[in-house]
């Protein structure tokens, strides 16, 4: 009696596992069963090629699919993730190492289903949950334009993901949990501009790839989640686009949001880090109407989100740290940013009342002090002023004290952001030293 019960439950368990396996397989490859014959690719016209080139720009494909010093879009750049490096593929039409033997259907499968020819599942470092939202015509236009570019023979190195995460089985399970091919459904209650903006932000722009928090398995909170996220490995914080305290998109005039997207700078903010690359390689080249549509959508989203109470003032800082911070500020920063952090209009940003200084997450501040740098040189801001790197000049303790000074002493009561510790500085320094 007992043995029979045991046997029965083992069978049930086995059947359950088989069912689960079938579900995973069905979820990842099921559509291939009933696949209708691939539609013929319409011959490319100058208009469709231009559209394809524009969409490749809007997706900033070149940023990940180009390795420093090599031909654009020939792939091979390591995208470092907490699970290992994923190497971007060669998008030029080379037969053996690129898209030379791909069909338009293969390209659509990659964009919409996250699958390479032959059904191989792609690693989600390629943000296919976003490209999935693009229409078949978009995919065909991009493919036609990519095919029109010079072929570059450059083999893509194999990913170095920690076993078993790079295996097809692991990717299949991950995708069953976090990915569903989707099409973009316009919201009929919103304007055409809003919908265009939503499509750009959620689709080709793949904003949530950075501006959304990722869980322990590396999945974002969805293509429309813009609540901000810490980018692992590269150590930048992509601020929340809906929280007023972080980016103030609800109260910033639309023209100023457009200006930031187009030129990398507006009256109250300047892009840096990975966002500077996005402006440089993608956004500054987009049509004004599209930037405006994105601004309208982003502002609407920011206005929907509930206002949050101001955080309580943080505890006071130890006198020795406060004194050290003041000294470092006077010696290295006050010359440009002013004694009171007031900045120089149009040249050096003010630090008092600066949202980027007051972000709860101090990662971007540490990056700025360690590596300094320039805002992107764009048509709207062609000759930026630069900031020196301090990585070789200041110690962790000095940088921590300096940033604490910026966030506490230089700020008005009620808006202070709290201490930065030497440990926080040390971690970012260690992880970003090249």
């Amino acid at each position, binding site marked *: 009696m007992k043995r029979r019960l045991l046997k029965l439950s083992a069978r049930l368990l086995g059947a359950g596992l088989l069912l689960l396996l079938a579900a995973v397989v069905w979820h990842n490859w099921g559509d291939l069963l009933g696949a209708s014959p691939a539609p013929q690719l319409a011959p490319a016209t100058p208009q469709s090629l231009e559209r394809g080139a524009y969409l490749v720009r809007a997706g900033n494909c070149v940023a990940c699919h180009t390795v420093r010093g090599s031909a654009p879009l020939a792939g091979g750049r390591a995208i470092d993730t907490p699970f290992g490096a994923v190497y971007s593929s060669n998008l030029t039409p080379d037969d053996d190492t690129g898209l030379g033997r791909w069909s338009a259907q293969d390209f659509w499968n990659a964009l919409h289903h996250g699958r390479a020819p032959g059904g191989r599942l792609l690693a989600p470092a390629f943000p296919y949950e976003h490209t999935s939202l693009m229409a078949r015509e978009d995919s065909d236009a991009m493919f036609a334009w990519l095919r029109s570019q010079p072929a570059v023979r450059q083999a893509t190195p194999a990913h170095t993901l920690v076993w078993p995460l790079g295996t097809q089985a692991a990717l299949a399970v991950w995708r069953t949990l976090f990915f569903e091919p989707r099409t973009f459904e316009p919201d009929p209650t919103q304007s055409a501009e809003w919908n265009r903006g939503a499509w750009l932000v959620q689709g080709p722009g793949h904003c949530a790839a950075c501006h959304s928090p990722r869980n322990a398995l590396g999945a974002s909170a969805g293509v429309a989640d813009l609540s901000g996220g810490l980018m692992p490995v590269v150590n930048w914080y992509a601020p929340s686009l809906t929280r007023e305290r972080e980016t103030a998109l609800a109260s910033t005039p639309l023209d100023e949001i457009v200006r930031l997207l187009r030129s990398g700078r507006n009256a109250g903010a300047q892009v840096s880090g990975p966002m500077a690359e996005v402006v440089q390689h993608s956004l500054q080249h987009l049509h004004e109407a599209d930037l405006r549509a994105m601004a309208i959508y982003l502002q609407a989203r920011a206005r929907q989100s509930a206002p949050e109470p101001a955080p309580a003032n943080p505890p006071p800082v130890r006198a020795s740290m406060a004194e050290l911070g003041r000294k470092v500020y006077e010696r290295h920063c006050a010359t440009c940013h002013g004694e009171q952090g007031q900045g120089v209009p149009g*040249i050096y940003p003010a630090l008092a009342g600066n949202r980027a200084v007051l972000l709860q997450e101090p990662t971007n501040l540490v990056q700025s002090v360690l590596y*300094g740098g320039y805002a992107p*040189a764009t048509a709207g801001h*062609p*000759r*930026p002023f630069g*900031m*020196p790197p301090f990585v070789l000049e200041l110690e962790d303790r000095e940088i921590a004290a300096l940033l604490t000074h910026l966030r506490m002493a230089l700020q008005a009561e009620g808006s202070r952001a709290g201490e930065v510790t030497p440990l926080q500085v040390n971690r970012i320094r260690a992880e970003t030293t090249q």
Partner: protein
Amino acid sequence: MTRIFRNRCARVLATALGTLLGALTVLSAWAQGPRQVEDSMAERTRACTACHGDQGRAGPDGYYPRLAGKPAGYLYHQLRNFAEGRRHYGLMARLVDPLSDAYMAEIAAHFASLHLPYPPPAPSTLAAQRLARGQALVLQGDAALGLPACVQCHGERLTGLRPHVPGLLGLPLDYLNAQLGAWQTGQRKAHAPDCMAEVVRRIPHEDIIAVSSWLASQRLPADTRPASTLPKPMSDSRWRCGSAPELSGALPAGGRP
């Protein structure tokens, strides 16, 4: 009594002096006012001069070379080389990545236009015999090794050739060694065809230090500016330089970088 009196006098005097000093400090601060930030290339290139020294006159430790007065085309190419991975230094790459070609050319032209006096060279500690070997390689080359003389391309005065060939004097020994080493290992590259890589590969390993030591110990000539023409243009087609077409007469000297 007298001691108390003397103490009191001293205290009064000290207080008066202190007040006076304080007043002077306040006055001078008031006279200076807040620093006037001017819209200039010097201001725009603070990120450069923080390491490369005021006006690009070189950093204090020998690793940040002088920028002032180097040919504009050469400086521009170096910025591009960092951006495109032909030279490797993470800090430089991060600085130049967001810049446009036009702005890099402007920054290069700015430093090229600065003519500052050079500090006297540090005497070399290398044996005279080895220094003589270095001098011979720089001035005559070595026909047996197929090695052209440095002066053939870098100018008779070794101050470079406009617009793309850098001068070789006024550079710290550490920097010269690091660069020649990097050319030998292929760490540092220039546009193809990479003539300099080919030249440095032919320098025997043990002669690198002789060449760098001799160069680093030379005083600069009265006219420190890069030459505008070579007395004898390179006729040997083996030495074509992708980064300096003027060497093979492909570009009039002084042309656009």
